[in-house]
């Protein structure tokens, strides 16, 4: 895709996303975060407006493969202050299925996500395996035509609203393999299967989508729900976690831009000394700097999307985009909170409510230290540090 085509797609997606924001705008999103309520109606609007078909091939009812479309959608909805995390999860789970699934799996899992009938959550994190996924304990033992899955995941976003959960489990125990990267497998688990349990976590993210403990007790998963090759889940994950980084970058940039716009609107008006504080350089410069950093992160992001869509190794670009995007968003939010002064902390101003989510993106889905480790080792060829 040329830069112009990419830019045009981004504009078109943004235009079409207005119909979603009409259904759930920022105020409604915050209200539901506080009082309860799902994003089901926003999801339906996304389906009706043809947005869920972005990133899915025409043979499966979509409007064309590629991560650029979903990234543009995530950016647009985040910029409107209504980031749909389950959409992000579904979008990258789909990429893994597209690239590693069987024809049968593509038929089962792609087309229903385009119509909005199927949503997919993602479960990799465990209490003692966050950054270090290889330490996971969740185990899927093969028993005839199915796996028997046992374990406990946590922080699983929007699992209550998902139809399937893409679960990463060990099919060979760590002690039985020399290479820690061997022995992981990716399974599509129907959330309504016996033995799947959810307990809500107390997470203060100010989002209508919540996090859960996922209990897996003797869950029978048909072997045809294995995505990719048993024990070689790392290969499948590669095409889930790279697009995840791209989508998360879009989430960060969008939300950072949302915060920045709110800040700019505020400093134009607020005038404790008679003139708007937005006329002071001390107030302008952090906002201006944030704008520049968000713009730079965006260029990096779409370059990374391009590389991914061309089948190039996106690792370096996707990681750097995630680092720059989350840092730019954090700096933007910080500058905006400073500009709002005390009123940032008034729940009604909905400024400090933006902070936990923006701050999270330096930690999840992968912390920025790990990204710097990656850059150090893989790009700068420095020794592994951990």
């Amino acid at each position, binding site marked *: 895709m040329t830069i112009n085509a990419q830019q045009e797609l981004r504009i*078109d*997606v943004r*235009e*079409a996303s*207005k*119909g979603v924001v*009409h259904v759930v705008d920022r105020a409604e999103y915050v209200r539901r975060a506080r009082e309860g309520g799902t994003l089901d109606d926003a999801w339906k609007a996304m389906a*009706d*407006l*043809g*947005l869920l*078909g*972005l990133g899915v091939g025409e043979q499966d009812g979509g*409007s064309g493969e590629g991560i650029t479309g979903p990234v543009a959608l995530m950016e647009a909805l985040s910029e409107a202050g209504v980031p749909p995390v389950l959409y992000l999860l579904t979008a990258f789970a789909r990429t893994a299925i597209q690239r590693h699934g069987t024809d049968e799996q593509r038929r089962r899992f792609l087309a229903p996500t385009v119509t909005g009938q199927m949503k997919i959550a993602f479960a990799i994190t465990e209490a003692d395996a966050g950054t270090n996924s290889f330490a996971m304990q969740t185990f899927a033992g093969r028993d005839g035509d199915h796996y028997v899955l046992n374990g406990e995941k946590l922080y699983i976003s929007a699992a209550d609203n998902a139809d399937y959960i893409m679960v990463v489990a060990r099919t060979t125990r760590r002690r039985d393999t020399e290479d820690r990267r061997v022995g992981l497998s990716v399974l599509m688990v129907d959330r309504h299967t016996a033995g799947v349990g959810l307990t809500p976590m107390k997470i203060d993210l100010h989002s209508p989508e919540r996090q859960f403990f996922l209990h897996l007790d003797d869950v029978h998963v048909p072997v045809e729900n294995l995505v990719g090759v048993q024990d070689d889940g790392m290969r499948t994950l590669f095409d889930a976690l790279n697009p995840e980084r791209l989508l998360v970058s879009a989430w960060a940039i969008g939300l950072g831009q949302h915060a920045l716009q709110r800040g700019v609107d505020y400093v134009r008006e607020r005038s404790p000394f008679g003139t708007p504080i937005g006329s002071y350089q001390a107030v302008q410069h952090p906002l201006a700097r944030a704008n520049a950093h968000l713009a730079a992160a965006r260029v990096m992001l779409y370059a990374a999307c391009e590389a991914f869509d061309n089948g190039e190794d996106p690792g370096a670009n996707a990681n750097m985009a995630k680092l720059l995007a989350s840092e730019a968003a954090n700096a933007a939010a910080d500058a905006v909170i400073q500009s709002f002064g005390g009123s940032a902390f008034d729940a009604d101003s909905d400024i400090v409510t933006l902070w936990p989510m923006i701050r999270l993106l330096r930690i999840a889905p992968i912390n920025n230290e790990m990204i710097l480790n990656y850059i150090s080792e893989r790009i700068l060829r420095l020794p592994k540090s951990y």
Partner: protein
Amino acid sequence: MNVIVCVKQIPDPALPGALDSSSNTLKRDGKLILDESDSYGVEMALQLVTAAGGGEVSLVSMAPNGEVSGLRTALAMGAAKAILVSDPALKGSDALTTAKVLAAAVQRLGGADLIIGATESSDGYTGTVPEQIAEILGLPSVTFAKKVTIDGSTMHIERQTEQGYDEVTSPLPALISVTAGVVEPRYPSFKGIMAAKSKPLETVTAADLGITPVGWDGAGQTIVNVSQAEARKAGEVIEDDGETFTKVVSYLENLKLI
């Protein structure tokens, strides 16, 4: 059934507007978007064509600098084709010239069973263009249409009045101007936006339509002065003494809202 909607493309109302001090006209040199007032007409047209079971919605617009963003939005909503009249010579055109140009564009499209305009546009307006178009084309016109049903070659209109609405019947072809808020304009879908890119959109000049003189030369009216709109007065605060509802009721009665 074929419907033509006259749509205006205007500067984004969310951005601060500016006047050209030499001509006292609104600056329209940036990006223009579909006037929200016209999105109701487009929606109504699409609904009428669907109800009729066939036909198409076409658009006519007059805008500077070959601007088509607003037309693309209306095409993305579902209109089939459009004519844009864009011509530096049109700068300074008054309401009557605008009506002549749009009427000629309607004729270039071969006319239609129904022509729809907005009661008034949102940026700069006289509220007279649709009726002038009807006069030029020799069509019956009904203003303030809030509900329209078509029955063969007859149109039934509920026409908004201060008290309620009039029931009006008109033969087709005809022209109506619709009030804002009477239908809920659809949001363009992603497919609609993509499809709009390849829909026919012809750009013509005033000369192509055979309309002269236009612009400042053709204008029978000039804007002699512009003055600041009066600041809105503070609202009335009513203390609740248990009888407040009577004051609220009489306030609403005064506004003829109840």
